């Protein structure tokens, strides 16, 4: 199995209606099992790229690779792509089509041809795993935003994908449900599922992601570890992103001489705390 689960080679795509180039020569590789944060202004091409990754949009030019093989756009091929690459859309009301929670969740797995008996077990399993059981019998329209989000994630999880794409999962969620989603994402990552997440939260991205992809005007401006991306202040400025809080505090502490400039600039609060912890230890050893 190749190390790269998904690859994009010179992808170009324009929408029919306005002819605008939504994706302009996108080149990317996603490592299997990694956590990748996609950042960039609205309209920079993130959502369009995601829709290419599961075969909804077919690029005008360029090639996409899944597990090292070019995308197969035949009926069977598309079904395989969609089983392996699942998208949780930003607005659950744009994803949930059934008024019944269990029917909604069963849709994906039945489309994969799984027989009804096993499908029911899978659906029940996912419902329990995501603690949907308390509101399982309520109609979709009576669910809160956070509950709808849980159902929309269950929709995808039941298909056992290799890659899960989350398009701004925490937008419009209350703190409780944001935490539920974040914990779930961590669990899934530990199981080896590759996670792509579009987010505007640079602090979260730097703490969570293995890699950050900055998109701008349909192009990949920068792809790298959070530290690499944060050091590229030009790229950050172009995508209207501020430096993460940890970096700003770090720079202040360096300026005051509390911390020495280090090669590994801390980009998350956790790393910053570790750097501060080291201060006492260094002093002790002097």
């Amino acid at each position, binding site marked *: 199995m190749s190390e790269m689960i998904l690859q994009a080679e010179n992808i170009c795509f324009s929408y029919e209606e306005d002819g605008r180039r939504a994706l302009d020569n996108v080149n990317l590789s996603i490592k299997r099992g990694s956590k990748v944060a996609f950042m960039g202004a609205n309209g920079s091409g993130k959502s369009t790229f995601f*829709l290419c990754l*599961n075969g*909804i949009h077919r690029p005008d030019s360029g090639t996409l690779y899944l597990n090292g093989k070019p995308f197969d756009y035949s*009926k069977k091929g598309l*079904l395989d792509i*969609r*089983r392996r690459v*699942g*998208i949780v*859309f930003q*607005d659950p*009301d*744009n*994803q*949930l*089509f*059934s*008024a*019944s929670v*269990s*029917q*909604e969740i*069963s*849709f*994906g797995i*039945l*489309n*994969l041809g799984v027989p*009804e008996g096993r*499908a*029911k077990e899978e*659906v029940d399993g996912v419902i329990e795993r995501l603690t949907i059981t308390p509101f399982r*019998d*309520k*109609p*979709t*329209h*009576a669910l809160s935003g956070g509950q709808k989000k849980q159902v929309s994630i269950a*929709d*995808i999880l039941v*298909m056992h994908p290799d890659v899960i794409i989350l398009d701004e999962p925490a937008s419009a969620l209350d703190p409780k449900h944001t935490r539920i989603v974040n914990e779930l994402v961590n669990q899934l990552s530990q199981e080896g599922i590759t996670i792509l997440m579009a987010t505007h939260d640079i602090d979260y991205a730097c703490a969570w992601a293995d890699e950050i992809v900055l998109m701008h005007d349909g192009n990949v401006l920068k792809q790298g570890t959070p530290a690499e991306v944060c050091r590229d202040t030009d790229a950050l400025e172009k995508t209207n992103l501020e430096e993460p809080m940890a970096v700003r505090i770090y720079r202040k502490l360096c300026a005051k001489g509390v911390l020495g400039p280090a090669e590994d600039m801390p980009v998350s609060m956790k790393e910053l705390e570790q750097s501060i912890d080291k201060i006492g230890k260094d002093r002790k050893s002097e």
Partner: protein
Amino acid sequence: MIVIDKLCYSSRLRYTNAEVKFTYAILTLLFCVISRSLVMAAIVLTVNGILTVGKGRIPFVVYRRLMLIPLAFILLSTGAVIVNVSKSPLDAYAIPIGSWYMTGSRASLMFAARLILSAFAAVSCLYFLSLNTTMTDILGVLAKIHCPQMMVELMLLIYRFIFVLTQTASAIQTSQKSRLGYQDFKTSVRSFGQMAAVLFIRALKRSNALYDAMESRGYDGRIRVLQESYPPKRKEIVLVVLFEIALLVGCILQLP
């Protein structure tokens, strides 16, 4: 907010077998309409009241309000049935107006009473179905009786989308109201029209996104979903069969 929809999810009869409920409601409805019998209508009204309010635990106040919804139509239409304008007076009453009479016959008054009561009984059957069965379950029954697949799939989607659009419409109207959009007739007409137009535009945008989401999960032209069903209890089946046979006998005997 659609009251009937909200209530059916909390009915105590929600988890009884949907086919049994459907068969009971439709058959009873038909017998009431065929026989137009006052006796049968009274019995059906009582039974449905007990089932819906007693067993289903639908609040009586709401049930009474719902039962009165058809009142305006019934009064107006039946009024038209029993009032005649003719040159010759009929036997129940005749009020002279110039050389004509406003008149009605005893037979038609009797018929009107039967019509009104049996219509209300029929409505109570419809309410039994709608207040104690979720739309999802009703669609399951329609699918089982081989209703065309495209119709059932459309109904499944439309049922969900109704609530998405209702929420959007409500949000737009609230926003308009806060800006005095409904302060007089002329402004109201314009605001309502604009809201409807915006609603339609949003509806179509969403339909595109929803299709993308369905296609992302392997939609290939058939909506496949698990149908939850609750096995019928023998006691329920027996009671329904006995009741319907009784109504059938009542029809044949032509009860008053």
